């Protein structure tokens, strides 16, 4: 067992979907387990932090870390795993670009805590307690990690070697990555392990998109019947396929939902949200302010539409009146 390559899986600020995607590899993971030694996988097995700390630096061949970095504990684990791993892979949208948790960068930390612990309709907190990082009771101290000012992608905290995009990544992509890893046949550092071309390239609906497309009304998917064969943009749904890396197999479109952009931008795009916004704004039909406003009424949440997965890693990154307390 000792000479099989050591692999670690870890999670930070995430929903658990990425863990599901590992399990989705089904029998392939059984086969894999004969070739690798899993040294850390908190969701599935009982490994301890001290086991990792006891390892030599670089002893782990590769770590796949999912989830964004929001707390001091997550940052600490990211740094530890970075040190112990030859290769660190940002796994899934949150680790890659901040993901859904990154949307909280629109609000200051204090506002978030106030809402969650006091103002949210479901909160019951009669004593008005706020979360503390330390709690003393009967001579013992319980601690909680520090909740930082902003959500960060993994590479905003530590050096990252590869990225597997997706919310969550699909098993085929993950298997390909692991096989590449085992065979040593790896691309250059920093590569996103998915095809470097937009989803439209493979979309069967593209042929229904006219050359002179002009959108006079954006529609929200839950309010309309969607034609399963026609380009989402032609139907007025804000599909991010043109601005999103492929590799997902068009899963959402197969389920008749527009692409929401989880695979992130192509390699030569610096800001996926800005690009998607530019592209869609360019094909709005109206010429007067009123016509344009009315078309855009169908996009009530532009940040949530164009930066759903990428706000933390984008040029916008966070609301500007905040100062991060944790430095990189």
């Amino acid at each position, binding site marked *: 067992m000792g000479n099989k390559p050591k692999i670690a899986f870890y999670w930070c600020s995430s929903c658990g979907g990425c863990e599901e995607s590992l399990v989705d590899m089904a029998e392939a993971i059984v086969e894999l387990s004969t070739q690798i030694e899993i040294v850390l996988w908190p969701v599935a097995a009982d490994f301890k932090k001290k086991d990792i700390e006891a390892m030599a630096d670089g002893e782990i061949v590769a770590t796949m870390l999912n989830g964004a970095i929001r707390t001091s504990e997550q940052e600490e684990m990211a740094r530890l795993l970075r040190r112990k791993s030859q290769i660190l892979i940002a796994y899934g949208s949150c680790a890659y670009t901040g993901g859904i948790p990154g949307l909280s960068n629109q609000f200051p930390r204090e506002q978030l805590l106030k809402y969650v612990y006091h103002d949210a309709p479901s909160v019951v907190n009669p004593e008005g307690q706020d979360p503390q990082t330390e709690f003393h009771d009967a001579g013992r101290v319980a601690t909680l990690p520090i909740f930082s000012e902003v959500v960060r992608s993994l590479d905003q905290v530590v050096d990252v070697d590869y990225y597997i995009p997706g919310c969550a990544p699909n098993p085929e992509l993950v298997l390909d990555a692991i096989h590449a890893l085992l065979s040593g046949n790896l691309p250059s550092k920093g590569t996103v392990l998915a095809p*470097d*071309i937009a989803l439209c390239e493979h979309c069967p609906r593209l042929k229904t998109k006219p*050359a002179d*497309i002009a959108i006079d009304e954006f529609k929200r998917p839950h309010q309309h019947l969607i034609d399963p064969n026609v380009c989402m943009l032609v139907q007025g749904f804000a599909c991010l396929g*043109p601005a999103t890396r492929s590799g997902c197999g068009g899963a959402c479109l197969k389920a008749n939902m527009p692409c929401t952009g989880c695979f992130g931008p192509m390699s*030569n795009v610096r800001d996926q949200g800005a690009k998607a916004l530019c592209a869609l704004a360019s*094909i709005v039909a109206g010429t007067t302010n009123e016509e344009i406003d009315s078309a855009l009424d169908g996009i009530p949440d532009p940040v949530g539409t164009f930066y759903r997965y990428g706000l933390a890693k984008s040029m916008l990154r966070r609301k500007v009146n905040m100062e991060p307390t944790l430095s990189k």
Partner: protein
Amino acid sequence: MDDKTIGNGSEEVRIGFFICHCGSNIAGTIDVEAVADYVRTLPNVVVSSDYKYTCSVAGQDMIVEDILKYKLNRVVVAACSPLLHEKTFRAATQRGGINPFFFHMVNIREHGSWVHQDRALATQKAMDMARGAIARVKFHKALEKRREPVRQSVLVVGGGIAGIHAALTMANAGKKVYLVEREPTIGGHMAMFDKTFPTLDCAACILTPKMSEVGSHPNIVLWSYSEVTEIKGYVGNYDVTVKRKPRYIKEDLCVGCLDCIDHCVFKTGNTDDEFNQNLSKRKPVYIPFAQAVPRLVAIDPAACTHLNGGKCEQSCATACDRQAIDFEQKETFEHIGVGAVIVATGFKPFDAHRKPLYGYGRFPDVYTALEVERLVCSSGPTGGDVVLKDGSKPKSVGIIHCVGSRDHQTNRWCSRVCCMYSLKLAHLLKEHTDAEIYNFYIDIRTPGKGYEEFYERLQEEGNHFIRGRVGDITDVPIIPEEEGRMIVRVEDSLAGFVRRIPVDMVVLATGLEPREDASEIRRRFNISCSSEGFFLERHPKLAPVSTTTDGVFLAGCCQGPKDIPDTVAQAGAAAAESLVLLDVGYVEMEPMTAFVTEKYCSGCKTCLPLCPFSAISRDEEKGVAVINPVLCKGCGTCVAACPSGAITQNLFEDRQIFAEIEELLVHA
């Protein structure tokens, strides 16, 4: 790439920075020495200096010498607008042996010294901008201008005096000219005039020889009764579609004997004669006027009985011994290629109905100036007799200036020609009728050669000049002398009281307006217009006949009101500019165009509808967008919109722009 050019992107970046005082234009507000000292400390900067006038020969030589002395491979100049001197400094860079696109310019004059007063802050801003440029220029690449051949032909749109003069000039220089005129004859408004000011030359006598020269010139293809419907392509290589409206005459057979007109079943005219300003009637088969060019009749489908499905013995057709009449004729389309285009589509006279208080259309003897031109003309509807609608001669005439000009209710601009043509008409009316002539004016504007002298002559001839904008024309008399006459009510601003002047005839000196379809024409030729709708020259002083579209030039009143001498001068200038383009024989295409990196293009079609120059098409086989670099103007619209980052624009690459922005904001 030229073998001698250095800078393949791999060698060490060595930047030379030069900051210009521009006399005191920049140095008066910005501490240029401090900026030079600061930039010298930046990475990759090998030399940094300031100079009084960097654009001077000595300043350029300094750049060339420093390139050689310090083995520079990048040059940044902080000076005025790139619009002014980018070319100058690119050329200097090239003389130093570097590809000219390794040069970058920072505008610290228009964006700096001219808009700031605080010396310290303006200096800081100049430093920031320079730092951005230094960061950006590292990422510049060697680029090459491409050359495209220029077709040796020109399209002239509009056959008034402007189009005629431009066409003849080009044709005499040996170029092939296509002259397209909407009406059945060339000649335009000038053909309708009787005399021209201030010399009182007979308009026809000076115009018609030029018209016949156009008609017979071997280098001119004249398409009258035709319109340009589409223009595509780019400077030097325009593809033009011309619609030839059916005139129901076989042009190659008609010799202009006019027998058909004599034999028309209508013995007298049955429809308004536009050429005579509807003051007379013409037949359905007609020639606009005796000296029309081409001398071809036309059949008016609106007035012809046969073409309206009525019963007609078609005597015109039988009268033609050459069988030239063809009632089955349909519109046809000609496709031509030209190197340059001269737009000379003229003007529209102000519609006098828009000033209802002056009674046009309400009182029979209120005329527009153009109507009076026809009345005083010996080939006009009355044979030159100036008579009122009841057949009598007027004993007094009022000429109202500035109708539809200098008027906030209608058009605010001065139409430039009305003062002088009003004086001319005053002289001609006096000559024809010996009536008392009253000129009602706001200011008399005579800024042309011999114009003021003509005004003096008119004053000596006993014409009355009353300064004041006319309030209205009324037919309600208050004293016996006013009975049965029109009364001009005007506040005489010199005398300081309101006058009532009874007259028999009123002439409205209507101003000049853009044509009704000017904005349509403007879009077709992709040129701009000013707020009033006249076509916009590229620069009012330095490029007065050019437009923002290369290879499209302006002549005559489509660009703004002007008299015949100015029109002819401008037409000559437009012809000269076109000749330069054609004679150089090629156009250099700026390399700051956009291109598609195929492997990144998903074929999502986002860019296809966006290009204002129709430069983007789709390669259906490969499923990718393709940009025609010749049509691309480098506007950047598709570059911004491309959601894949597959479209890049030379000199505006992401890494260049972001490097500049990041350095610019580093202290913000």
